[in-house]
């Protein structure tokens, strides 16, 4: 039987599997950036519902989930908030856009939680109340949630160049 070559079939299967793996690798950067953006947006919306809305539990859960995912992703993949370009083959055109989007969203959320914190602190100083104490606690938690994904290194914002 000379028509059958096991070697060529093996080669074709190996090339096919390497092709599939290369497709996965080419999809990956877009997916990672999407994951960063969605987890940041989820953190911000969860924080806003936690601060403002009456059903705090949903917001607390969303904050918890997105923080866990952000910390996990920061440890595994290069974080796009860094100004220095990472060397792991992620496309360099998308990173600044996503870093601007995420940093703007995080800063707006941080500003909102700061406003709530200052207002509630003033109200708490005027008239101590249990509800205001709770609001103070919530706003402090939200500020910490903003600082954690930023990693205490603030990116170069175009606002500060104006």
């Amino acid at each position, binding site marked *: 039987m000379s028509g059958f070559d096991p070697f060529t*079939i093996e080669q074709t299967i190996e090339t096919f599997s390497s092709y599939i*793996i290369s497709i*996965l690798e080419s*999809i990956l950067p877009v*997916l*990672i950036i999407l994951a960063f953006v969605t987890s940041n*947006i989820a953190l911000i919306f969860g924080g806003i519902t936690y601060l403002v809305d009456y059903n705090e539990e949903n917001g607390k859960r969303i904050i918890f*989930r997105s923080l866990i995912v952000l910390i*996990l992703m920061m440890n595994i993949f290069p974080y796009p908030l860094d100004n220095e370009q990472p060397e792991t083959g992620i496309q360099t055109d998308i990173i600044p856009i996503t870093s601007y989007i995420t940093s703007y969203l995080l800063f707006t959320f941080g500003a909102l939680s700061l406003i709530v914190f200052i207002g509630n602190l003033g109200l708490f100083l005027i008239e101590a109340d249990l509800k205001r104490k709770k609001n103070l606690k919530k706003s402090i938690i939200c500020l910490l949630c903003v600082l954690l994904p930023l990693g205490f290194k603030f990116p170069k914002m175009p606002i500060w160049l104006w």
Partner: protein
Amino acid sequence: MCSSPSWIQIPQDAYLVVVEMLDEILIQVVISIVEIITSIPFGAFLIAFGSIIYPPTGNKLGKYCLFLGLFLFTINQISHF
């Protein structure tokens, strides 16, 4: 049993040879599928997919995707040493 017509000359062990060929092809296909599933890019893909789905909705599927991706990462780390 498939009986061949008498006017075609086929060696008696042709059926066995075909079965062996199919066996080898199947084994190679299964091995390549397992290699794809246990590779690092697939784990990274699973983690990215899970972290897109999990934080806003809290799905079970996203959670298990994250766990599976971490598991694949650890497996690949162990096999390096």
